C-alpha cells in the first residue's frame, strides 16, 4: 500500500484493479542501444502492442512526446517513462558488435519525476545496478533515492529495476544478489519492481515475498520460441509475480500483438499456455459477411486500417463496405471480406503468399518480387500493393480479426473451415 492517493490512482492504471496484475511492454531500447529493426519500426510495433491489450508501455521521454497518441483514452495503456539512461548494452567487453562500443559503464538520470508527470506518465522506471563496483552501486542508490523523494512529492509511482552485472556476479551468487537487491530497492522507495527471473519458482517466490511490493518479471533476451517466454511468465506468476515487463520478446516478435495478447491471457488468468498455443481449431476460420446485419457504419474499414497501420482512414482497409442504391428503396450495405479462397496464393509463382500453419495468409517478404499477380487474382479486389510494392491482404489480424471484434451488429462473423486446404509456409 502506498501512502499517497496520487500513487495509488496511478498504480491502478498500471495494475488491473480486478486482479492486481499488469502486462507491460518495454519499448525503450532505442534510448540505450543500436537502432535495431524493433527500434526503427517502433510506431508500427507500438500500434500492435496497443491492440494486443498491454496494460502499460515503457518508453523514453522523447518517444512519449512523439508517440503520445498511443496513450490517449481510458482504455489505452498507461505510460511509463524511462527516467534514466545507461550504456550497458554498448559495453565493449560484452558486445563488440555495437556501432560505438563503450568502455566505461555509465548511468545518468535524464528526466525528473515531475517531467514524467507532466507528460501524463503513470510511473517512472529506473535502473539499480548492483555488482559492477561499490562506487557505481552507491551512485545508483543515490540516484534512486533522489527519484524516490521526487516521486513521493508528486505522487508518482517509482518502479526500480535491479540488475546484477559485473565481474563479482556469478552463476553461484546471482540469485542471492537479486533477492537482496529487490528488498534494497523497496527500502529505498520502490513502489514496484521490474526484475529478471531467477530461473526457479522457489527462489523467485522468496524474492517476491521479501520485496514486499508488486514484482514484474522482465523477459530479457528474445526467446527462441514463444512457449519459452510464456513458460517464464507462468513460472513467475506461480511464484507470486504481479505481471511482466516484456521488451524484446514482444517488440522483436513476428506478431507483437499476438504475443501481447497471449501474455495477457496468461497473466490475467484467462488461459493456460496449452490453451493459448493450441491455435489449430481457434484460428482456422474465415470471415463471412452477414449483409442483413450491416448498417453501413464502416467501422470495420476504420478498424482494419488502424489495426494494421496505426493510421486513421479507410484507404488501407483490407475489406470494404459496398452500398447499393435503388430508387424509392432504402439503400443496403454489405461487407466485402476475404473468403480465404486462396486464389491469390495460387497465383503467387514465387510461393511468397501462402496459408500459414495458423490458418491465415502470410507473406514471405524475402520471396515476394512485387509482381502484383496476387492483386490481379483476387476476385473481390481486396488485395493491393503498398508503397513498397508489397501485397496488402487480409491476414485475419493474425488470428484475432478486429473487424469482428468491433462490429457490434455482427455483420461479419468467423466461420470454421471444413476440409481446409491448408498449406504450410
Amino acid at each position: 500500500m502506498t501512502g499517497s492517493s496520487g500513487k495509488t490512482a496511478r498504480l491502478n492504471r498500471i495494475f488491473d484493479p480486478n486482479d492486481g496484475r499488469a502486462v507491460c511492454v518495454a519499448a525503450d531500447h532505442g534510448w540505450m542501444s543500436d537502432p535495431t529493426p524493433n527500434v526503427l519500426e517502433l510506431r508500427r510495433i507500438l500500434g500492435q502492442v496497443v491492440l494486443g491489450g498491454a496494460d502499460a508501455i515503457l518508453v523514453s521521454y522523447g518517444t512519449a512526446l512523439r508517440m503520445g497518441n498511443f496513450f490517449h483514452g481510458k482504455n489505452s495503456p498507461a505510460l511509463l517513462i524511462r527516467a534514466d539512461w545507461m550504456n550497458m548494452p554498448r559495453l565493449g567487453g560484452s558486445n563488440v558488435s555495437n556501432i560505438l562500443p563503450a568502455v566505461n559503464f555509465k548511468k545518468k538520470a535524464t528526466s525528473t519525476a515531475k517531467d514524467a508527470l507532466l507528460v501524463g506518465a503513470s510511473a517512472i522506471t529506473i535502473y539499480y545496478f548492483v555488482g559492477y563496483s561499490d562506487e557505481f552501486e552507491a551512485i545508483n542508490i543515490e540516484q534512486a533515492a533522489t527519484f524516490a523523494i521526487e516521486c513521493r512529492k508528486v505522487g508518482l509511482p517509482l518502479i526500480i529495476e535491479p540488475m546484477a552485472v559485473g565481474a563479482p556476479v556469478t552463476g553461484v551468487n546471482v540469485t542471492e544478489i537479486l533477492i537482496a537487491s529487490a528488498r534494497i530497492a523497496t527500502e529505498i522507495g520502490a513502489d514496484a519492481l521490474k526484475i529478471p527471473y531467477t530461473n526457479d519458482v522457489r527462489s523467485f517466490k522468496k524474492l517476491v515475498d521479501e520485496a514486499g511490493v508488486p514484482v514484474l518479471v522482465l523477459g530479457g533476451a528474445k526467446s527462441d520460441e514463444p512457449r519459452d517466454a510464456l513458460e517464464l511468465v507462468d513460472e513467475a506468476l506461480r511464484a507470486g509475480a504481479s505481471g511482466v515487463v516484456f521488451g524484446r520478446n514482444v517488440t522483436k516478435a513476428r506478431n507483437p500483438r499476438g504475443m501481447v495478447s497471449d501474455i495477457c491471457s496468461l497473466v490475467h488468468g484467462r488461459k493456460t499456455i496449452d490453451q493459448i498455443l493450441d491455435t489449430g481449431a481457434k484460428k482456422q476460420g474465415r470471415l463471412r459477411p452477414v449483409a442483413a446485419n450491416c448498417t453501413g457504419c464502416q467501422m470495420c474499414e476504420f478498424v482494419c486500417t488502424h489495426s494494421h497501420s496505426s493510421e486513421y482512414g479507410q484507404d488501407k482497409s483490407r475489406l470494404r463496405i459496398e452500398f447499393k442504391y435503388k430508387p424509392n428503396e432504402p439503400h443496403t450495405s454489405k461487407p466485402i471480406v476475404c473468403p480465404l479462397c486462396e486464389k491469390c496464393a495460387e497465383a503467387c509463382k514465387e510461393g511468397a503468399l501462402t496459408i500459414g500453419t495458423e490458418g491465415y495468409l502470410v507473406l514471405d517478404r524475402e520471396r515476394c518480387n512485387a509482381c502484383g499477380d496476387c492483386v490481379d487474382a483476387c476476385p473481390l479486389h481486396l488485395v493491393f500493393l503498398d508503397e513498397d510494392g508489397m501485397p496488402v491482404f487480409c491476414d485475419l489480424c493474425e488470428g484475432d480479426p478486429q473487424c469482428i471484434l468491433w462490429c457490434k451488429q455482427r455483420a461479419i462473423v468467423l466461420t470454421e473451415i471444413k476440409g481446409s486446404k491448408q498449406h504450410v509456409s
Partner: protein
Amino acid sequence: MNINVGKNIRMSDFIDSKDNRSMLLDLTVTSSIGAQPGTEHISETLKQCNAIFDGIILNPGQLEHHATLVGGKLRAAPLVRVDWTNAYRDKEFCLPAASVTRVSLSDGEDALTLGASAAVATFLLGFGEDLESENIQSVSLLARECYRLSLPLVVDIRPIGGNITADNYEGSIKLGTSFMMEAGADALILPECDLDTCRLIGMWATVPVIMRCDEVPTSEKAQRMLEAGMTGIVLTEKSLRVPGFEGKATALKSLLHQ
C-alpha cells in the same frame, strides 16, 4: 518564542517526556544487505512490535508503504534512516563490499513528508579520512536543515571500519560522540561499550544517548546502562531472532519506564 517547540514535540514521540527514557527498534540494515531473519515481512514485524517500542527506525520506502502501522498515540513513532551504506556487507554477504561508501537516501523535508518523528543519520568511523570528512559534512548540512524544519536529528555512531582496533574502540566512540554533538545532533545512538565510557558520555553528553544492542539485554545489564546515564536502548533486527523476543522486549520496556 521557543523555536525548538517542533523538535521537542517530535522528540517526545519516541523519548517519553515523563521519564526521559526510550526504547527503539532499528529495522534499517535491510537497505544494505536485504531481508534478515525476522524482517522478511516487514508489515508482520511492525504489527508485532509497534505496541512494544517507543519508536521504530525504518528506511524511507518501508515507512511510506507501512505508514498506517506506525505513529499515533498507541503505536511506535516512526524514525526514518536518511542514509545508506554498504559498510555492513561482510564476507557472509553475497557481494561483500570492497570499498565502503555512504550516500543519502532522504532529507529533512522528505522525512517530514513521510511523517517521521526524527531523521536518523549514520556516522561511520574507521574507514579513512575521505569517508569520514564527507560523512561529517553531510551530517552537518542535515543538522542545519533539521534545525530549520524543527525535526530532531539522531546520529547513529558506528565505529566499524578497518582502522578500529580493540585499543581505540572506546576512544572512537568518545570521538564520534564529540563530533556529532558539535555537528548538531539532537540525540545519539552508541554501540555497546564498557561501563566507564558509558558513564563518561552519560555525564558529558548534553543530548539523549541511546545504546544499540543486538540482543535484548538482561535486566541487570539494562539497569547498569541506565544508571550510567543512558536514555534508553535501541534493539537491532538481530534481537528479533531470539526465542521469546516479545516477552523479553516487553519486560525491558517495563524496566525502562518503571
